[in-house]
């Protein structure tokens, strides 16, 4: 099952920030990491990652630098900044709120169903 487009878009920023928090990385590696983590269920149009990265850079959450790689090409690496870490914490909390609230509702729904069947 593929995750819907809207949800994918909404989760892009926390994904990027969380991955960069572990280590500095570049676009292609970030995509690969996301695929690994989600088992290919979250399909990104890969090119769309870059506008997101640039926007994060503009918001001062991350910064970039160019570095040579083993292939001989120069790569643009991204590094998370303090503001980015703070933003990640904020987003984490928001996702947790949504997640726990949704979990509770679903729990109630299943209970309700059981009662209904029981009656």
């Amino acid at each position, binding site marked *: 099952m593929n995750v819907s487009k809207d949800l994918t878009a909404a989760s892009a920023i926390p994904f990027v920030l969380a991955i960069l928090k572990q280590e500095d990385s570049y676009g292609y590696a970030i995509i690969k990491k996301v695929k690994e983590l989600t088992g290919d269920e979250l399909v990104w149009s890969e090119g769309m990652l870059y506008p997101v990265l*640039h926007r994060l850079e503009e918001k001062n959450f991350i910064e970039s630098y160019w570095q040579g790689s083993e292939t001989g090409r120069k790569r643009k690496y991204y590094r998370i900044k303090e503001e980015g870490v703070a933003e990640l914490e904020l987003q984490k909390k928001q996702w947790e709120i949504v997640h726990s609230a949704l979990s509770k509702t679903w729990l109630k729904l299943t209970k309700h169903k059981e009662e209904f069947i029981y009656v």
Partner: protein
Amino acid sequence: MFDLEYNVRSWSDHLRRRGNFKESDIIELENHLQDEIEELQKAGLSPEEAFLISVKRLGNVNAISQEFSKVNTENLWKHLMVESDQTLSFGQNRKYIALVIMFSFLAGTALKIPQLFGLSINDSVYGLIYLKNLSFFILPFVAAFFLIKHQATWKMSASIMGIFASAGIVINLYPSFSPNDTEILTALHLPLFLWLVTGVAYMGLEWKSSRGRMNFIRFTGESVIYGTLIFCGLIVLAMFTQAIFFAIQLDASWFIQNYLIVYGAAATAMITVYLVETKKSVVENFAPILAKIFSPLFLITMITFLIVMIVSGTSPFVEREYLIGFDFMLILVLGLVLYVISARNPYDKNNLFDYMNLALIVTALIIDGVALSAIVFRLSAYGITPNKVAALGENLLLLVNLAGLAWLYFLFFFKKIDFIKIEKWQTSYLALYAIWLGIVAFIFPIFEQLHLNP
């Protein structure tokens, strides 16, 4: 045979042609594509397959390009809009402040130049010449400031500066002789006419649009308020200077009259327009409040005046000076009404202040009607003079303006029209003022001369 390198290059050239990418963006995307291709090739795919899949995974170039245009043009947009935004970049702001200082200095110096030729500003003989030309010392600099700030077209800059230059030449070519009736009229009307010309520089290419003109009306109102405040500050400074130097037995009045006030007045004008223009958002919060405080007060004063006039049965228009005084009051009231209109959101529902505005308009209309009848009476009783014709024209213009506004307000209250119609009508009407002011300033002196030397 599939040429991988050629295909990758043509793919990135395709991106380049879209124009939304910076070169570094393209290198980044191309790197991504090549990483992906290499990985797929390692997994056993042919270069062609790897290329096609990678391109597909990167996604629709149009969509990416659009997303990039959002990110990159946000920057571009910021650079373009920087002047009207309060998030003015530091360098830009400094440039404008430098312009303000330079133009203040130039305007002040321009005021000093006639003195080099022996035309003292404090000599009453030359008073009228100075009065007539006063606007030429300030307004061209204000206009130039806006032309530079808005990066006006060459054509517009040339026409506006051309109008200033030709007005200056024409006005001073008219011979001057007693009793200087039309010269005084010119001195009174020319600054207003030139202010409207300056307005075109302020509005730039929007000068024909209703929105642009409404902005200009608001700008005018705010400039008057802030200019007055700053000028009061200047007076306080002058008095203070006088006082402290007096304490050490030095008379500073020579310096104050010749330099402090001259350069101060020039700087007041420049700083006011700069502040009102750049600190828009700060001013916008404050000025409508002023309008709301003063429109009820003016309404009460005018209604009381009308009642007293009717009850006591005395006409205030027997003396000529009062007639002109009333014209100024009507202009002030109209200015207040217009200012309230311009500060109002056209999509709001009608509220208390709209009714108050209508009441103000109707009261002004009645007073204008009384004034007009007095003028017509004087015209028929004492004959035609330039003064009376000018007053007649102004009062008629005001009458039509006020009546039109009142009528449109009624229609608005009965939900026949949108508020925007009122704005549109008023902004188109501005052109008539410009024409009449121009006629009084430039054509009246000619008529007077024809009349005196047939």
